[in-house]
């Protein structure tokens, strides 16, 4: 493989590139999904190819192909340089990549059981058992259960001497029940409303206990049809850790992406309110809010050995005691701040350019037991499991909906609530955080469907959180 990558880099250099890198990826994905007692989808997907990124002068070019052959490598390397030269027709500022990256080595996701060693029969058996329990509840209109296994075998090499090989495994699964009345639809899912997914082996699916939670999920979906609608008011909000994970993703992860700050995602993903002068000089949240980006924590969807620029996995503080202190960076953007990259560049395949992506952006645990947090709340709502999400292009104005809620009165969970929504402005919301669950309640979730870039890339990111409490939050936006 090294001969192959060296040849590509030599061709790119000979054609005029002052920097080049190549990624060769072999991707395998297996999905099994069951719906209403039938197989809804089952099959394998294979994709292989390579992408070459070149810097000519101060302009970038990228070309990719599914045909992994020597002649095609030469064509694609030459094309990448031609594209970079075309980019120079509309030139930008000087590009500085900072210190050379010369990483070498091999990384494989630690797994107990290879998810591809589990037969399709075994996977179907698990899903049919869960699905059957969901359908035992006559109020369930649609029952769903699925599992996924992914293996990415990646080679990365650059003209600075880096050569790394990684085999990254992901596994996941979920169950969901949908109940339908004449006027509405209610869905409950487990462990999360997006497929529960992380870097790991089949043990990750087993730990999710899809079968053991199916009966509860079905009962809750049906109960929601008859539940009261979330009231409209300003109140105390307690979020479970899975909903909080998406809140972190949207309102901390994305605004700390440094490419957004520099405006290079303005036309699609948007920009950020966390502008440069705010670093070390802006109160993002209350004193108990600490957020960290780390790509070294096991089982996160943002866990790896090196990013797609060959920069090693790391841990970076983003928010400390409520102060905004750090960004997610690439080599090029970090150098603009006279910093080194913290390894956040990833592409969703061989045919896509690496972009700054969240690794595992998490809220550090606090000190509270969840029961104590609720007992300490006179009047509020406890919301669980994301149902809808939307946030403005600066990552300030957000609105989320959850699958289920419970009214809290006098320190106790009382009424079941449906169609729960809440809204706010990012720093105001995080400044209102006055209680965070302890490490016993902390859980690392996966968001496998984060969209960014053009052409659109879908990336998996990780987010850890414990349940947390927020004061004076607007809930019940649309009744």
């Amino acid at each position, binding site marked *: 493989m090294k001969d192959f990558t060296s040849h590509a880099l030599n061709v790119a250099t000979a054609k005029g590139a002052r920097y080049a890198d190549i990624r060769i990826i072999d991707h395998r*994905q*297996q*999905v099994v*999904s069951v719906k209403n007692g*039938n*197989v*809804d*989808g*089952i*099959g*394998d*997907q*294979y*994709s*292989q*190819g390579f992408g070459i990124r070149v810097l000519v002068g101060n302009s*970038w*070019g*990228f*070309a*990719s*192909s*599914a045909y992994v052959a020597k002649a095609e490598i030469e064509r694609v390397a030459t*094309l990448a340089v*031609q*594209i970079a030269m*075309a*980019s120079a*027709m*509309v*030139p*930008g500022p000087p590009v500085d990549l900072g210190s050379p990256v010369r990483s070498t080595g091999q990384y494989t996701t630690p797994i107990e059981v290879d998810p591809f060693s589990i037969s*399709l029969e075994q996977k179907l058996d698990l899903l049919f058992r869960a699905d059957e329990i969901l359908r035992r509840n006559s109020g369930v*209109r*649609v029952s769903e259960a699925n599992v996924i296994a992914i293996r990415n075998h990646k080679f990365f090499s650059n003209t600075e001497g880096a050569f790394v090989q990684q085999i990254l495994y992901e596994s996941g699964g979920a169950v969901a029940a*949908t109940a*339908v009345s004449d006027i509405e*639809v209610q869905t409950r899912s487990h462990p999360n409303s997006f497929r529960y997914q992380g870097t790991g082996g089949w043990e990750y699916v087993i730990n999710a206990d899809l079968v053991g939670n199916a009966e509860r999920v079905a009962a809750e979906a049906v109960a929601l049809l008859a539940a009261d609608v979330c009231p409209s008011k300003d109140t105390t909000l307690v979020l479970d850790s899975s909903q909080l994970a998406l809140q972190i993703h949207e309102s901390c992860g994305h605004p700390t992406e440094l490419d957004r700050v520099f*405006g*290079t995602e*303005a*036309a699609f993903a948007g920009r950020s*309110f966390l502008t440069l002068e705010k670093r070390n000089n802006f109160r993002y949240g209350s004193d108990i809010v600490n957020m960290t980006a780390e790509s070294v924590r096991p089982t996160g969807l943002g866990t790896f050995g090196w990013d797609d620029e060959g920069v090693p996995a790391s841990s970076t503080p983003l928010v400390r005691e409520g102060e905004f202190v750090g960004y997610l960076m690439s080599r090029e953007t970090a150098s603009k701040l006279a910093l080194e990259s913290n390894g956040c560049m990833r592409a969703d395949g061989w*045919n896509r*350019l690496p972009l700054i992506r969240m690794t595992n952006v998490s809220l550090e645990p606090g000190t509270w037991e969840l029961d104590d947090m609720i007992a300490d709340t006179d009047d509020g709502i406890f919301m669980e499991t994301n*149902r*809808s999400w*939307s946030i*403005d292009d*600066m990552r300030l*104005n957000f*609105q989320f909906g959850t699958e289920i809620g419970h009214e809290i009165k006098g320190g106790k969970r009382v009424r079941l609530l449906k*169609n729960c*929504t809440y809204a706010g*402005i990012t720093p105001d919301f995080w400044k209102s955080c006055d209680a965070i669950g302890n490490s016993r309640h902390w859980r690392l979730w996966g968001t496998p469907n984060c969209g960014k870039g*053009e*052409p659109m890339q879908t990336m998996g990111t990780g987010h850890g959180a414990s349940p947390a409490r927020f004061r004076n939050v*607007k809930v019940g*936006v*649309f009744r």
Partner: protein
Amino acid sequence: MNFRQISDLVMSASSADETEVLGFEQNESLTRFANNCIHQNVTERNVQITVRSVIETKIGIAISNDLRPESLRELAIRAGDVAKLQPSNPEFKGLPQPQVITPVESFDSAVAECTPEQRAARVGIICRKAADAGCAAAGSMTTSSLNVGVANSKGVFAEHRLTLADESTVIMGQNSSGWAQRTGWQLAAIEAEALADEAISKVRMGADPVDFEPGEYSVVLEPYATADLLEMLAYDGMGALAVQEGRSWMNGRIGERIMADSVNIVDDGTNIAGIPCPFDFEGLPKKVVPIVASGVALSPVYDSFTAGREDRKQSTGHATPPSPQGRFGPAPMNLFLRPGSTSLETMIKTTKFGLYITRFWYTRTVHPRDAVVTGMTRDGTFVIRNGEIAHPIKSLRFTQSYVEGLKYTEAIGETTRVLRSGFGGAVSVPAVKLAKFRFTSSTR
């Protein structure tokens, strides 16, 4: 290998009762710009072969981009092996029989052969105009060509090649921004000068926006915002699977007048005014499907699976590609909101007090059965007072049933704009004026 050779090889290697081969061959290039320079510039050459094997009523799917003959044979065997593992699915009635397909032209060699230099030249026009205006431009230009082929063991064989050109820009001033976009299958649809001028004029109009109290207001929506109405309604339930599962806004409303008389929504897959394709991903011809006619909800679109679940239903030619991840269900891919007879200027002139919206952003479903959607306005939101655009305001969040919004349609624009859909395909939409639209919060 061409698609005929690929499909023949796969079918000869398959021992399934029925076999389907879907092939995509794509060349896509995208030039991306920000801060008035090109910062990302990419091209991709890829193929994808999807094999759907049927044994009795069991379906197995395997997908690969490896075209070596031995790999294609393995793919066919793999799909068959997957099918064998399953219990029978009596709802599946088999792969479709061939039908007559009328070819349609949607390939422009100028798009397929567009060079990086040609894209850079068009992008350069926008960046220079923005710089001259003291603004920063961001955006992208895409040129792509796609060969689609579908074949099955019952005799279906269809091939089509199409092109897509799309360019969009956000141009930003000190405290305002403007948006413009053009989409078409012909390169002539892309007018860089006009794009830049449109976005820059919105930057100037939108300078120094003020806070504005959310509430319920009359709105005039530019086609960019109207496009979101159609896209989200399509996503929330214009397909038969959503209706059959009871999660569509059409549930309980079919045959009822739910929108204004002037609203006519149709999927017209072969209409060259949009981005046409003569057949769906099962190789069945696309039929014209009136989804809402004179405000009355008529019918979702069907594929062969959903049609087979109902009495006397036939596929309308709206199958989406088979996926191991489960059925997405049939979907409209070339959707039209028929134009009315009112100019945009008249819509503004006839508005005593309301809001003028350039586009919506980050819209998500809150309640699917009523197509309640939340999202933000972006790149130009203005107050209309006494028939004139009075002043810009900061972006607002709305939470609104799109079905109910269209119930209060007061006017529909006389011209339409084709726009690439975020869910695939395209929508062709005019401006609209709605009497009521609910804004639920503001931003900074």
